[in-house]
Every structure is written in structure tokens, then in C-alpha cells.
């Protein structure tokens, strides 16, 4: 029988067929779906994030790893749903109003999914009101705002302001994107800033109080 560490290694290497096979074998051997996710897939994707952050792998390797993970989750999600097991954290993500760019946002969503967060992707050109409504509706732990353009940074600032005013005490706000810096994040009152998709999981975990 393969080990959970074999699954972590397969998903980190982006070996889709091996990832599916090992997932099936682990389930057949009686490993719980929750353990397969939390002790197999999540550590594999965490390794991907760390290697990416250190420039030891790049976007193509991250994409094939995420694709392998997605295939495994197709097998696991019905079993998790049947057992009533839900992800511990819910995150809402989108690109701010006035910005149609989505590559960075998609990469972060992919990594959050790989960390077993429930991800609500609002897409692009998302108004502040929609962020607030989604955060409330899904009882989000983290709301992620992305911007590519310098011209949409004011929209990010406005969204942070409205989220803060919406009286959602459990919601932490994370920002990122090409023109965004830690200094800008601090200036507009965001709770966290991620410079790259590889760091986004650890920063979100820290924001919700988990040691990353």
C-alpha cells in the first residue's frame, strides 16, 4: 500500500495519473478521505508553494501540481460530503472593480484550494458591495483582493474600507497583485499582503490564527 507521503510527493511533482492511482489505493486500503486530503494532498501543495516562493519551481510546475490535486479531489469530494466533512476555512477572492485581470487571482485561488480552503471565486471587476455580500453570505474567514493595475489601487482601498465598515469581525482582508506592496497594504488597512501565490496560503493561515 502506498503511503500518504507518496501522495504528497506525487501531487508536488504534478504526476496526475500517479496522484489518482495513489488516492484510489489509499481509499481502498481504508484511509479516511479526510486524512488523504489533510495528510496527503495538503502537504504536497504546501511543498509546491514553498518551492515556488523560493523560485525553485515556476508557474508551469505549480499548474500541473494543482491539476493533479484537482483530479484527486474529484474522487474525494463526494466522500467528504457524504461524511459531512467541510473545509475548516472559507475564503472569498476576486479582482477589484475596474480590473479584468485574473491570472494572479487564479493562482492564489488554486493554492488556497490546495490548502483545503473552501474557495468562493467572485471573478474579476468585483465591486466592494459584492465582496461584502459574499463575505457575509459564505461566512468567510478571509477575503482576498487582487489588482494588476495602478489605476485600480483606489478601488482596492475603497473595498477594504467598506469591508471594515461592514461589521464582519471574523473576516481578515488579504491583498496582492503587481503594483501592491506591504506599505500600501498597511496604508489602506488590509490585514495581510502576499507578494506571490506561493506565500498566500501561509499568510492566510496566519491571519486565521493557525501557525503556518
Amino acid at each position, binding site marked *: 500500500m502506498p503511503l500518504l507521503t507518496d501522495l504528497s510527493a506525487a501531487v508536488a511533482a504534478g504526476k496526475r495519473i500517479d496522484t489518482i492511482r495513489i488516492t484510489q489505493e489509499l481509499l481502498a486500503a481504508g484511509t479516511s478521505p479526510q486524512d488523504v486530503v489533510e495528510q496527503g494532498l495538503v502537504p504536497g501543495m504546501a511543498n509546491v508553494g514553498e518551492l515556488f516562493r523560493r523560485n525553485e519551481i*515556476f*508557474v508551469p510546475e505549480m499548474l500541473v501540481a494543482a491539476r493533479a490535486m484537482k483530479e484527486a479531489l474529484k474522487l474525494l469530494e463526494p466522500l467528504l460530503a457524504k461524511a459531512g466533512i467541510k473545509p475548516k476555512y472559507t475564503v472569498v477572492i476576486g479582482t477589484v472593480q475596474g480590473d479584468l485581470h*485574473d491570472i494572479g487571482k487564479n493562482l492564489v485561488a488554486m493554492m488556497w484550494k490546495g490548502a483545503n480552503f473552501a474557495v468562493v471565486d467572485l471573478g474579476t471587476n468585483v465591486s466592494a458591495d459584492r465582496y461584502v455580500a459574499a463575505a457575509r453570505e459564505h461566512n468567510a474567514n478571509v477575503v482576498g483582493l487582487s489588482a494588476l493595475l495602478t489605476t485600480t489601487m483606489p478601488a482596492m482601498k475603497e473595498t477594504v474600507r467598506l469591508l471594515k465598515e461592514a461589521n464582519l469581525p471574523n473576516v481578515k482582508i488579504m491583498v496582492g497583485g503587481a503594483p501592491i506592496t506591504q506599505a500600501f497594504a498597511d496604508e489602506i488597512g488590509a490585514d495581510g499582503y502576499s507578494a506571490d501565490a506561493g506565500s498566500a496560503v501561509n499568510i492566510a493561515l496566519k491571519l486565521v490564527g493557525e501557525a503556518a
Partner: protein
Amino acid sequence: MPTVTMTGCERVNRMLARQDHDRVPRHDTYWPETIARWQREGLQWDQTDALRLLGSDFQVLCWAWPAPFPGHREVLAQDAETETVRDAWGGVGRFWKGRSGTPEHISFGCDSREAWEKTYRPALLAAPNPINTQLAALRFREGRQLGKWTYLSGVEAFEALRRLIGDETCLVAMIEDPDWIRDIVQVHTDLVIRHLEVVLAAGVQPAGLWIYGDMAYNHSTMCSPAMYRDLVWPSHKRLADWAHAHGMKFIYHTDGRVTGVLDLLIAAGVDCLQPIEAKAGMDIRLFAPTHGDRLAMFGNIDVMKMATNDVAVLEEEIRTKFAAGMATRGYAYHSDHSVPPSVSWATYQAIVGLVQRYGTY
């Protein structure tokens, strides 16, 4: 103190060869909204006037971006702010109405190797050359008369790949089906050269080839240096070799952090890198001393600092970066991206003054 006045063409050629010249060559790019703002604040006409005030040394002649369905633009849906369009590459994107900005890419017609081989490859090879050779020749004559550095322009293979098959398909295929990527890269590069050769055949003798392709973002290159070397670098080398064989210098435009591939770009034959995006961590003060003897640098003046509209901040930016670049004799002014509409006309006029003040040898 300069003792002679040079034409823009002489100035840029000497900059590219890292030989003495009178002042830093200059060019810039503006968002349409920036020009609209400046018109409200005193700019008399359009971006031509801004470039004239700056003292631009450059003149584009034509643009090569082979498409399978040239001229195709089909509006599929629209709302008050955006319209969804199927374009000349077979992709569907959502674009802003009446303002600039990066579109949202919704789908790509060429989404598999099968679609490429059956439809898109044959369509690309059969499509007419969209370059207006007469217009290119007219611009060349005008540019030469004004002493400008005239150049052919277009899009390189990595940018073309992303437009044709999309980021995700492209980047995954770089691992899972590299031969498909090689084929697209080769077909695109063949066509760019074929299209531009028609301009040369009309008697146009440009000084350079300035090719656009964003292969990086704020964290790094999109793919590893090894993957770039294997799949895309050969096309960059081919374009550089072709330019050099026709007496042209080769300027390569890429946004993002490309510090990891600077040596590969030099080995490909890139003569000059532009625009050297500051917000992605690119800083000529750091790599002019290490690479400035082999690579000319064009840009790096931070648009985020321009957007502060604080002349003291800009003076420090221009003074220190010009000093680093000018020490190599291989530096030209350009914003590190495009000047955004948050920059006032008064600020830009101050920038031009600083460029003049600190950019004279």
C-alpha cells in the same frame, strides 16, 4: 558638456554600442487616459506633442503580430461598461468600453494541439500579411528626415502563445507537450520574419527591431530559465540573428522580473532591454554594474513614483538611475511601463526637465 549635437538615430546607435554621445536618448508610452487628462491640463494636441516635448528619438514603422483571422472582431455580448469580443486569434475576451486596461480572457479557440493542427496552424500560414508596406515606407522617410531611430516592431513567440492558446494551456503544455509549443513558436517566428521582410524588400532600411513579449511578472519569469532556454530562447536568438544580418539592433520589451534570464537574453543577441519594470524589483542601479557592458538598458523610471506627483521623489529616482545607467554609456530614458493617468501634466513637464538636467553627458 556636449560639443556636438547628434541626430536621434546617431544618439541611439551610439548608446546601443555604449559609445560616447551627447545626451540620454528618450522615448515614452502613455495610457490613453493619461493623454486625456493632460489635454484637460494644458497639453495642446495628443501624445505626439508629449513625445515632442520629451524629445523622443524613436519612430516606429510597422507592427507584426500574425493572426489566424486578421481583422476579425465579433462582439458577442456587451453591458454598460464592457464588451465580450471574439478576436483575430479565435479567443473570447471581455474588454472595457472606451478605456484601456488588460482584458479578461474568457476562452481560447485554439485550446488543444488538435485545434492547432487542424484549424489554427493552417489558418495562420494562409492568412495575408496585414502590414501596410506603403505606410511603413512613408514613416521611414519621415523618420529619417527628422533624424529618428526608425524601427520595425512586433510580438515575439511567448506573447503570441499566450494570446493564441492562453496562459494555462501554454504553461501546462510547456511541461506536458513541449513539441507543440516548439511548433507554435517556430511558426510564429517564421511569420514575423516573413512579414517584416516584405517591408525591407520595399527599400526600407530601419535602424532596429523592437520586439514585445511579456515573459515575466512581479515575482519571476513565467517559466524557469531552463524551460525558457529550451522552448522560447531559440526564437529570440533567431530574431536577433535576423535583425543583425540586416544591420539592425535588437531591443526586447518585457515587463516583470527577468533578472534570472539576463545572461540568456544577452546570449540570444538582445542588444537592449526595455522597459525594466521597477515595481517587479528590477533596478538598473543593481545590474548596470554587472551587465551594463553587454546589455543596453532602456527605462526603469518607476511609474509608481511618477504617480506620487512629488518632484523631490522623482528627482532622486531619475538622478540615481541615470547615474547608474549613464556610467555604462548604454542607457535610454523610458518610464518602467506606461505613464498612468495619476500623473499630472505639470509633473510630467517636471520629469522632462529632470531628464534634460540629469541626462546630459
